[in-house]
């Protein structure tokens, strides 16, 4: 048993770039990582947290049963390393049994038991919680606890990504602290602003709109993190955050989104650019509740009038590419070719003519005296999305379509898009390593959730279900491609760009590895050599 545990730990540490010479002693520990974050956290409670920063903070504080390794192999068990569960076994095709690590403790000293896991699953699944991740847990029929150290996950069907769904989607919550609170009050509870978890870091402080910090848990059962603390400073302005990096006021940024800023960072000798496959994808979502976009031909015509290649080259230069569909380089399904709408202005023009939208005075199209125009909303915080929208505006104008851009402050943007109160929106998504979470964004069952444009297609839903069930890479790849293809050709959205990510990190940080879906996944093993420490590292 111990030998196996040791072996697992060894694999984990070596994969994470661990170097034995630094040891677990105090000589190798210390350091403050200051991260420039583009936006604040919403709430620090895993089932309801949706912002990027909140995700990074809660993943440091709340542990999973097991963690994905750097390879992001979501299909079989070798892709995972133990955390709260020291081991697990597949009892049958629909059941996984987890054995919890008896050393695991909540940060207030209370041991973690199977009751916490059962409670956590209940919170994620309770409709009162209104968790956007709820749909991702649909395949799990039940979670039970035969004893304090054992948890049994039962799945509705037999499919390859069972372990992934059981571990990746659930960050464990302490039942003894939250159990007395109704699920619909959790998000507004004091805990959600001042969380207590069981991860390698514990909560430090949160000054809304300004700063969040976490501190190393020096007694963490899998070994303390090398760094002492991580501080996220909210800096909505990209140029300002790169300036802060160059001035030494910040140490790292998840990804430098603008080409001019990447070039600035690349010239600096104290910064290192670390490229990694991007989990981000961006584009334009049509609101299918609007009559104009309920028509598939209209959406396709607009899609064919947009020159994605020019947009990507202009906005990202060499640091971006046009995606093959709703997938990014990080995902294994993004290999090979998938049928997409062609950039074909002549065909777009023919389609629009056939729909009755004819060019009038000034070359702009109209039908029965109505001009062909729509408004796209975009958050003011994202310069990328505003730039892309401006380029689309110019391209559509040449096709006789008038596009208005309405920049909205990000909280207003979130509110309006979630409520379906828009014609078209510029979106940007961080995808999970598994294509399975496409259900969260495009399935009919997610209308009212994160399927903002209200795309409903039974054909797509059944293709998606079939792809999820299929086993083995070679067998399932064509099925996933069929899913992507259906989405491309139905065009509920235009998938315009996926950046080639570059994290910028100060050179004094060593052992830096990046797991593309969650760039700080291995931060517990990042370190600063004692001789390169700054005053703030001590």
């Amino acid at each position, binding site marked *: 048993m111990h030998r196996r545990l040791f072996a697992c730990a060894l694999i984990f540490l070596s994969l994470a770039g661990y170097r034995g010479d630094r040891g677990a002693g105090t000589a190798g520990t210390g350091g403050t990582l200051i991260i420039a974050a583009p936006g604040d956290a919403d709430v620090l409670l895993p089932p309801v947290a949706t912002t990027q920063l909140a995700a990074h903070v809660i993943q440091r504080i709340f542990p999973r049963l097991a963690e994905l390794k750097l390879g992001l192999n979501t299909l079989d068990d070798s892709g995972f390393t133990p955390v709260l569960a020291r081991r697990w076994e597949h009892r049958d095709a629909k059941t996984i049994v987890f054995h919890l690590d008896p050393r695991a403790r909540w940060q207030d000293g209370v041991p973690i038991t199977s009751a916490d896991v059962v409670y956590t699953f209940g919170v994620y699944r309770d409709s009162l919680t209104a968790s956007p991740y709820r749909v991702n847990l649909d395949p799990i029929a039940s979670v039970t606890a035969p004893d304090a150290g054992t948890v049994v996950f039962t799945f509705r069907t037999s499919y390859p990504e069972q372990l992934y769904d059981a571990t990746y989607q659930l960050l464990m919550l302490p039942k003894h602290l939250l159990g007395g609170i109704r699920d619909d*009050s959790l998000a507004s509870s004091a805990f959600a602003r001042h969380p207590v978890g069981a991860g390698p870091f514990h909560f430090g402080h949160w000054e809304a709109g*300004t700063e969040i910090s976490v501190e190393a848990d020096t007694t963490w059962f899998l070994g303390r993190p090398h760094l002492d603390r991580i501080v996220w400073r909210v800096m909505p302005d990209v140029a300002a955050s790169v300036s*802060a990096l160059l*001035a030494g*006021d910040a140490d790292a940024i998840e990804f430098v989104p603008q080409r001019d800023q990447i070039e600035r960072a690349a010239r600096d000798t104290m910064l290192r650019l670390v490229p990694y496959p991007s989990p981000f994808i961006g584009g334009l979502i049509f609101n299918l509740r609007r009559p104009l976009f309920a028509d598939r031909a209209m959406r396709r015509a607009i899609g064919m009038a947009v020159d994605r290649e020019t947009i990507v080259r202009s906005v990202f230069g060499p640091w971006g590419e046009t995606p093959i569909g709703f997938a990014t380089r990080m995902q294994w399904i993004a290999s090979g070719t998938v049928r997409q709408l062609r950039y074909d202005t002549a065909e777009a023009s023919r389609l629009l003519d056939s729909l009755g939208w004819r060019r009038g005075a000034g070359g702009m199209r109209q039908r029965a005296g109505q001009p062909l125009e729509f408004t796209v909303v975009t958050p003011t915080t994202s310069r990328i999305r505003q730039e892309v929208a401006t380029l689309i505006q110019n391209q559509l104008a040449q096709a006789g379509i008038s596009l208005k851009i309405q920049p909205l402050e990000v909280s207003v943007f979130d509110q309006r898009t979630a409520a379906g109160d828009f014609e078209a929106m510029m979106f940007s998504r961080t995808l999970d390593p598994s294509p399975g979470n496409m259900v969260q964004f495009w399935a009919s069952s997610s209308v009212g959730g994160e399927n903002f444009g209200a795309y409903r297609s039974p054909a797509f839903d059944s293709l998606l279900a079939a792809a999820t069930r299929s086993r083995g890479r070679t067998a399932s790849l064509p099925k996933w491609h069929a899913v992507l293809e259906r989405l491309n050709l139905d065009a509920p959205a235009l998938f315009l760009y996926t950046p080639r990510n570059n994290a910028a990190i100060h050179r004094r940080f060593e052992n830096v590895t990046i797991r593309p879906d969650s760039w700080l996944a291995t931060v517990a093993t990042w370190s600063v050599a004692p001789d390169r420490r700054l*005053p703030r590292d001590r």
Partner: protein
Amino acid sequence: MARFALRRVLAAILTVGLVVSITFLLAHLAPGQPMLADAERMHADPARIARIRAEFGLDRPLAVQYTMYVGNALRGNLGESFTMRRSVGEILRERLPHTALLAGAALLLAFAAGIAIAAIQATRAGSWTDAGVGAVTLTFHSTPSFWLGLILMVAFGQWLGWLPVGGMTTPVEHEQMGMMGRMVDVGRHLILPALTLALVLTAEIARYQRGALVDALGSEFVRAARAKGLAERAVLLRHALRAALAPVVVLAGMSVPALLAGAVLVETVFGWPGMGRLTRDAIVTRDYNLILGAAIISGALVAIGNLAADLGAHALDPRTR
């Protein structure tokens, strides 16, 4: 004097009330159902939404809501900010000193520079130096402050690397510094925004003081002083400047609106965590309680500035002395 002062104080209070009323009306005439939407956006639970509803009378007619808001405000309850999830009063108490520091520093710089420029000009009235200095001040007077700030930031923060480019403190390290270190740290962050804010005011002050100095230098008592054989330098320092310094209170009081407006832009450019940036953020995020809180503060500051200017002018006016 006392009656005059009382009337001005009442007028000041009336102004604050008016600002709040206008803002309240604006917020409620604008599309959307402001306060309630805020409560829902706060991830609030039903019990809490009900409490906010009752506390601010959100399902009652507008007039009732208004009276309830004013009643709450008078009792010091400004409600809660949904973006910051803290009480508005607490946020204002934290931010106001930051802007006071920035505006105070800017005012000090502007007066020092403005009076010095005026003295140079007044003693050489009509000369090329006078015209040249005048042209420079006019240029600064005509420069957009946010653009000037941007240029200063690039020049001193980036190219020369002498000063920090934004914020008010050095992260983390600030906490580890001693009292002196912290003051120096804030001071370094203060230089560029204060300079930007000051440059815009300097021109006004210099123009005004130049006029006052030229008048003073031509006045009876200065001529008498010269006749007594005082050196020109002493005349300037001892007599003329003293006469011209008198309206400083008036000028400072009247600068408040310009300082507040400037602070919105300058704090946005430099990321200074003060009232200006707070006001802008509150407005664009439609954080209604925070907008109303900011309205109270900026209304009160402008009213106090005007009050100081009025009382100062009243005290200086020879007819009322």
